[in-house]
């Protein structure tokens, strides 16, 4: 069984596709969340090893959600994702405490795994 992962994105079509991609690459998708508030709740409840977190959420900005998740002593690894280019976000990805960024169109288990390996 691969690492457990929580998918956070407000677009259902992306969540569905990401689940298929990640599961077929050996990840165990333990939950999905459509906004920042429920992402924080699901994180506490499901304790996933990885959170795939969209930057643009309807309620709280993705980077803020990331900061809140990673402010806990024992926290999951957060990987940011977006359909925008990572260059659009400047230094925000690293300063938010995320482990890395995967463009949505390039999402695969392999890319996530690469970011997880030290």
């Amino acid at each position, binding site marked *: 069984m691969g690492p457990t992962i929580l998918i956070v994105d407000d*677009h259902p*079509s*992306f969540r569905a596709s990401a689940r298929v991609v990640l599961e*077929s690459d050996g990840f165990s998708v333990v939950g999905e969340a459509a906004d920042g508030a429920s992402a924080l709740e699901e994180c506490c409840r499901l304790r996933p090893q990885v959170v795939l977190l969209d930057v643009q959420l309807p309620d709280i900005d993705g980077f803020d959600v990331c900061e809140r998740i990673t402010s806990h002593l024992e926290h999951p690894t957060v990987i940011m994702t977006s359909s925008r280019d990572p260059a659009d976000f400047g230094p925000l990805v690293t300063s938010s405490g995320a482990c890395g960024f995967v463009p*949505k*169109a390039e999402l*695969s288990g392999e890319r996530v795994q690469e970011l997880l390996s030290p």
Partner: protein
Amino acid sequence: MSGLRRALGLVAIEGVVVGLVALAIVLSSDHIDARAFQAILGLFIGWSWIGAGLIAWWRRPDNRFGVLMTAVGFAFFLSSLAAADAAWLFTIGVLLSAVYFAVFVHMLVAYPDGRIGSDRLRNVVIAGYVIAVLGPLPSLLFATPERLDCDNCPQSVLFIEDNGTLYTIFDVLTSLIAVVLVGYVVFVTLARFRDAPQARRRAMAPVIWSGAGLLVVLAGALLTEAVDGPEAISDATDLLGLFLFALVPYGFVFGVLRSRVLQAGAVTEFLHRIGDGPDPSDLRDLLSTALGDRSLQVVYWLDRPRKWVDAAGHPAVLPGDDDPARAVTRVEREGRAVGALIHDRSLCEDPELVGSVAAAAGLSIENERLQAQLRARVEELRASRARIVAAGTAERRRLERNLHDGAQQRLVALSLTLRVAQSRLRKDPDGAEAMIAGAQEELTLALEELRELARGIHPAVLSDRGLEPALAALAGRSPVPVAVEETPTERLPPAVEAAAYFVVAEALTNVVKYAGASQARISISRTNGHAVVEVADDGVGGADPTRGSGLRGLADRVSALDGTLELRSPQGAGTVLRASIPV
């Protein structure tokens, strides 16, 4: 007017008769010292008041100040009854001997506009009348003529007993109340004088200063009497009081004449300087000086759009008829409104002055109005330019959002699905095929969204084929039946076509959203060098042009092409949106 003249003539005759009767009473009195002097002085004072009062009444029949002034004169003659030898006449005379003073206080409180400003002042006036009658009462009830140092005076018919204590207590009490009232009236009168505009102050000064001076002297006399001060002081204050009392009506006449002379000078000076063609910025200052009102504002009337603006072109609001402080004098040229003067309401007391200055300023105001119109236009352009920029930014944000949430998300999902399908192609061909079919559907939806978005930015059919097919397509997509009645046969400039198209698109959106209409019609015609776009529906009407930003944005878009947008939407009778754009 002749009715007023006759009425005033009658009052004047009554004044003469009443004065002569008072003269006879004083001359025949047994208990008055220096009868001839007192009789002549009394006649002079009474007639002065009645005469000045009639002048004021004649000048301003609507202002009760003249009536009150005349009443002071009559009430003064009434006090002469105290000189009568018959006991009952003497009693009435003494009882009413201070009423003229209450009328005087009433007049001063109501000066200069003849109105009592507040309920508190009304109560002060009523208290004045009450205290004027109550004041002499102790001397009539509890004092013999000897106690009053008037051995020859008749005994009051109201006399109860000779009681020095009661007499003194009541006398001191009423005197003190009178002193407080008088002090308050002096305060109110001076405050009103201080707040009046300069031109009014010029006219008011003589009355205010002699009136307030008289009240101060009266308060001094009452206090001296209350504390039983030396007789010399009492006599001196009485004489000074009488002198000031005689002065007030002449102060009034002097004030009117002086303000007339000064105003005539100010108007002449104004005419002279306005003849030099003043700098527009000086116009307000010249008017303000001529009318003696520093708070004066000049506003200008614009025909398109119909509104009042100040010299800088900013919208101005005229005070209402019920505004207690400000009033408006409109300025017209050849029967057309060109501007208005907003001034202190007290200037309404001099309508001839304001009217003549306003008439003299007509041409300058007309010239300045053109400047104001230009500034208003610049102001409007600046605002509409800012709105266009803001609308552009908002539109770009909306497009980015729509692209991101719509087509982009579908393409991302598509990419992921295809990748998974590719990886399963060999070991699970059926699954991969189903995934590719799903991807096909996703792609169709993404294309549809992109098309819709592109049409919103600028419909390709409009640039390629012109208004007719573009409007037909709009009409075809509308859920409410739309008839395209007229479109230009030739192509219009692209900016005009685009504006016309978006006017129709926005209007049809509103028809669907709000109008509750069963049908609508579109027409675009060329009239007098303008493209006239009209969208009409048979819906509920009552559309509010300020609702939402859609119409505002359209108005800006049309106005950027020097066009105009009109909305007619009577309740229950459909809506017509009409844009007229120069071609």
